[in-house]
């Protein structure tokens, strides 16, 4: 237990976690940035936002992902970026869990919005986002 605690405050570990989460966020943002209309379709299918907010969210969120990813990789304002990454991960977890609980069979929209055969929102993705959240919170709290 103490070893895990020490690992979580280890500078090298946190730096590597930042690089990995940053890379994931940048990769996840690319297709959404290229095809905002398709991402808007995915956001709409989740059924969480009022119609008027769907386009705005689809336009803004990928750029927040991209900016957060870049900042995590560069390493400046890393704790602020960790906070943003944690907020994004928490939002993804809420979106996926409510879709699962409502029985929606929808595209995840996590990494691609172009395939139309992309991964469906599922509990395994929820678990992946939980890991992302854990890493992000560690970066935010421990820097």
């Amino acid at each position, binding site marked *: 237990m103490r070893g895990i605690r020490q690992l979580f405050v280890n500078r090298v570990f946190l730096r590597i976690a930042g690089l990995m989460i940053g890379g994931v966020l940048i990769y996840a943002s690319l297709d959404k*940035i*290229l*095809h*905002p*209309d*398709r991402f*808007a*379709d995915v956001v*709409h*299918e989740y059924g969480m936002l009022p*119609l*008027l907010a*769907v*386009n*705005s969210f*689809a*336009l*803004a969120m*990928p*750029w*927040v992902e*991209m*900016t*957060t990813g870049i*900042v995590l990789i560069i390493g400046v*304002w890393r*704790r*602020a*970026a*960790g*906070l*943003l990454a944690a*907020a994004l991960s928490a939002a993804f977890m809420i979106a996926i869990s409510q879709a699962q609980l409502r029985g929606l069979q929808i595209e995840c929209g996590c990494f691609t919005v172009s*395939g*139309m*055969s992309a991964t469906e929102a599922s509990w395994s993705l929820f678990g992946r986002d939980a890991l992302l959240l854990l890493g992000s919170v560690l970066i*935010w709290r421990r820097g």
Partner: protein
Amino acid sequence: MTTGEESAGAAEQAEARVHTMALIVGRFPHACRAAVLVVFALAIGATYNALNPLGIRWTRSPDGRIGIPRAFEQRLHEIAAPEALKALEAGDAIFVDSRDEKDYRKDHIPDAVNIPMRQWAELEADATKRLPRDAKLVLYCYGGACGLSTRMGKRLLELNYQHPIVLRRGWAEWTEAGYPTAQKPRRKPK
């Protein structure tokens, strides 16, 4: 109150605001930096969206649809079921069922071809061979906002199709109106 007193009061208020801001930044430095990052991201995103040919409006298109690129607003039309029935009777349109195959097998609009949008990535090459680019294509899906057929319409426009048209409330509207289907071809409109 004299002008001098007023300006002194305003200066005090401004100083108080600066002091409050400094307190907030001091208390929540990471949250404040995160807010700066969000503002930066929004600025970049807004600029990119304005320049992107496939950019979308921040709220919705003038006819109330969401997720429609500005470039397609005038090209991706929607029609209601009565208009689609006319096209079916005139025989001047190809009907494309974008629902899943199992639902198409249960019933569909007469002579409609099935191209499930959820499998578009695998079916795109075949679909473009089957559908002539200059044909009038009436696309339909389950109902509601008909996201699948709207998606198909957008994709077809990207592939230089000339006349994709979305049946607004899809299969739901068609069957509610009692229009003919493959299983019930003689059913008359209510």
